[in-house]
């Protein structure tokens, strides 16, 4: 990420830009390119801590076969290539945050706020949020919502919250193993629960965990989480389903690590016309029911829509033309090719 800015300031910050792109997946990234050719500045906001969206989070190593001119490319390679392609335009990235609200101001521009307490003032909003925002997967336990962020956590923000507690960690991946190792020295008791005695985690971590179990510092329990007991948001027992039947473990903190899943999230509250969790757009500009807010990629809906990355790229190009007329009203837009236009080549830093 040479020529790109990763913003880590957050709280209280105010950003002014031409376009805010919600989502830094492949389509959001390519939108930077198409907008950049038209001299439009972009800031991107993504809930993940890295660019690439589903390509980077769900299938970084999986081959994709239907990107034009790439017989095969992995999700991560596609992301890396897009990042290289948009580097000349120095987009500003705001990772690990979610856009909570969009407000249309009197002059037709927009004010966005994030869960990191940032404010964006922008002329155009482009929603390229794919299947929604990645959120921790909630285990199928009745009533778990009442305990969330009080005694049930999907991430460790402050290790101190777990000191001298009876902690149950559920899962068999790196997050479960890493936090088992990190929290073991400070907790009162720690039980790692996994459905099988096999882990998809760094072998060194698994070995260390087994040593802690052998030393009696960590309990390992085969099973699946079934039920929680507690009151006022504080758990006191975790019930497990095991081969030997139900098992109840005294616990004051629970950390389930089942990975991430996509949820539409706040997009549903932005007053846009929706169709089954997707945003309705026209097929000339890919504009939503609110002028100035566009939606491209998997998150939009129109007759004949195909959820393909290549469709999102096309949508980005047409959206950019329409966005230009909002960002620079009255300015004549001359359509140019990167192969022949010295002007475009200068923007790309090759002429």
């Amino acid at each position, binding site marked *: 990420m040479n020529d790109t800015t990763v913003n880590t300031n957050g709280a209280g910050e105010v950003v002014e830009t031409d376009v805010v792109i919600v989502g830094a997946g492949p389509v959001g990234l390519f939108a930077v390119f198409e907008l950049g050719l038209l001299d439009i500045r972009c800031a991107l906001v993504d809930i993940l801590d890295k660019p690439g969206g589903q390509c980077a989070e769900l299938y970084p190593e*999986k081959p994709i076969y239907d990107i034009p001119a790439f017989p095969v490319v992995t999700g991560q390679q596609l992301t890396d290539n897009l990042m290289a392609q948009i580097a000349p335009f120095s987009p500003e990235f705001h990772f690990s945050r979610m856009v909570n609200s969009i407000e249309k101001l009197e002059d037709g521009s927009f004010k966005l706020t994030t869960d990191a307490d940032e404010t964006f003032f922008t002329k155009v909003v482009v929603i390229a949020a794919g299947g929604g925002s990645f959120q921790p997967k909630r285990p199928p336990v009745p009533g778990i919502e009442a305990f969330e962020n009080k005694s049930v956590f999907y991430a460790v923000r402050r290790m101190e919250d777990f000191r001298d507690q009876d902690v149950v960690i559920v899962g068999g991946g790196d997050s479960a193993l890493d936090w088992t190792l990190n929290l073991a020295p400070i907790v009162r008791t720690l039980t790692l629960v996994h*459905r099988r005695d096999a882990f998809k985690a760094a072998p060194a971590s698994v070995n260390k965990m087994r040593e802690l179990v052998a030393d009696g510092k960590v309990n390992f329990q085969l099973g699946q*989480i079934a039920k929680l007991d507690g009151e006022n948001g504080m758990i006191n027992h975790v019930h497990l389903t095991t081969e030997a039947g139900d098992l109840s473990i005294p616990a004051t903190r629970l950390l*389930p690590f*089942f*990975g991430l*899943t996509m*949820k539409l999230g706040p997009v549903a509250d932005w007053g846009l016309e929706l169709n089954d969790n997707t945003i309705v757009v026209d097929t000339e500009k890919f504009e939503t029911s609110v002028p100035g807010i566009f939606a491209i990629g998997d998150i939009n809906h129109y007759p004949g829509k195909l959820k393909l990355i290549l469709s999102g790229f096309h949508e980005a190009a047409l959206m950019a033309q329409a966005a230009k007329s909002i960002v620079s009203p009255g300015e004549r837009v001359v359509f140019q090719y990167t192969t022949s236009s010295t002007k475009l080549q200068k923007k790309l830093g090759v002429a």
Partner: protein
Amino acid sequence: MKINVTDQAGDVHELEGLEGWRVMEVIRDWGLNIKAECGGALSCATCHCYVDSDWLDAVGAPSEEEEDMLDSVGDVKSNSRLSCQILCSDELDGLKLTLAPSAAKD
């Protein structure tokens, strides 16, 4: 070929499956309650189903990678499979399965 799918509400659906299609794709195309968010890339477990005991042998055991993905849901049983990893074929004509709670859309 036909597959019989019981959804999370207990309703049974007889679906026409096409040879070579993934069972997940058939269920999704018929509009049943399946999230299938990675689209069949074996990168999530949101097409999780339980295969009827009579069909377990015909369907076969999950691969190691599939077992790894099943770690990301909390309602795994001994007959759990990811429906994107089951291909429709004449040998599976009449296949019976039940959608897991963890396969449901939000």
